[in-house]
């Protein structure tokens, strides 16, 4: 039979979390309905290699403002098996903390050389690599002076529905007060990238971010890639 599952927590100082977080515990799914909750959609995008370099709009155009960084890592399931041919969709703010999204009304400066969108597929070993501009932090709650720490959004899509996550930077002074970080507790460390020397003079740093796809998200990643 069924019962109650997790009670989701509300992120402190996060207005949208207050507005949108269910107050009732989640319901458990009875066995007979379990399979129906796992979407599947074949991903066959035709990517351009330039989409993995977010630091410029095209190869013959100038590099965006700020520090160019490399981000790389491996996608695996919880047993360490590589996830191949998985689509990563990446978006982050520019060096000033501004997104190119039309609904970002922050008033922070735009950078004409930065779009902030990238896509890359994992290779046969589940590995990926892309370049972007180190995002700026931005004042999420001007009324109480709360900043969002620097972060890079990633949506991971294999056969299944999306795993949406964020990569954070170690030692960002705004990490500790961030509502998302607070909700993760000690597990926050799994979303913090490890810094390395990218070995190229035009790259300020490299960040290793391994993504482990767990739970129901893993179901179809194991099957058909």
């Amino acid at each position, binding site marked *: 039979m*069924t019962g109650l*599952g*997790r009670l989701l927590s509300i992120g402190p100082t996060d207005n*949208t*979390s*207050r*507005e*949108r*977080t*269910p*107050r*009732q515990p*989640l*319901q*458990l*799914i*009875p066995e*007979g*309905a*379990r399979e*129906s*909750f*796992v*979407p*599947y*959609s074949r991903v066959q995008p035709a990517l351009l290699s330039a989409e993995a370099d977010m630091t410029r709009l095209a190869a013959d155009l100038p590099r965006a403002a700020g520090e160019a960084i490399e981000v790389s890592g491996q996608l*695996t399931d*919880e*047993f*360490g098996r590589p996830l191949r041919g998985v689509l990563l969709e990446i*978006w982050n703010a520019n060096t000033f903390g501004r*997104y190119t*999204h039309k*609904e*970002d009304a922050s008033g922070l400066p735009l950078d004409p050389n930065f779009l*902030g*969108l990238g896509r890359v597929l994992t290779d046969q070993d589940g590995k990926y690599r892309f370049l972007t501009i180190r995002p700026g932090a931005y004042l999420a709650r001007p009324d109480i002076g709360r900043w969002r720490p620097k972060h890079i*959004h990633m*949506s991971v899509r294999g*056969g299944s*529905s*999306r*795993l*949406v*996550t964020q990569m954070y930077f170690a030692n960002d002074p705004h990490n500790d007060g961030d509502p*998302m970080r607070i909700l*993760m507790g000690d*597990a*926050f460390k*799994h*979303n913090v990238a490890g810094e390395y020397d990218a070995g190229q003079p035009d790259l300020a740093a490299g960040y290793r971010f*391994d993504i*482990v*796809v*767990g*739970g*129901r998200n893993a179901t*179809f990643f194991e*099957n*058909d890639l």
Partner: protein
Amino acid sequence: MNSITPNKRPATNEDTCGPYFPDPFCDADRMDLVEVHPGLVATARGTPIVIEGRLIDIDGNLGNGAVLEFWQPNDRGIYRTPAHADHPDIDPWFDGYARCRSKDGKFSLRTIKPGALADRAPNVTLTIFSDGISRLVTQIFLEGEAANASDPLLTSLPEPLRSRLIAKSTGANDRGEQVFSIDVVMAGNNETPFFDDLES
């Protein structure tokens, strides 16, 4: 959340997609699963219906800027998964997967009335990503289906909650397709039941 064994890697945390999920990552055409392509006469098999909905927050406002994914079986109740690749009842023109980013919190899905197998009632799985939450999952049922009374998911809920998952019939559109309507209340009064697909 997940139990950790020595040989098991801890899963990367899900996180909010924030308010600025890029529209170019969504395919605007993916909210009509009936027409295969605007330039082709091919259409999915079965009875076209429309499901309209609104996301509502705790203050009664529309939940703007959400990414929505829909997942359902075809008219004969078969999900388009690798496990069913050779199933005789697959519809080659229907894969049952739709998505959009809703700027205003409303959505309209044109699809095939889902079939249902075994003891399930026709349903559409809805996944919501938005600012303020990581991910919410539920299922939408259709008013007037006899199987609603015995569906294992619906009947697992306390009786007063069941109707919150049933989209109401609001008549037919210009094409003669039955239109259903549902409010998905993310928090507060008349909150929609959501499901725990990590711990179930």
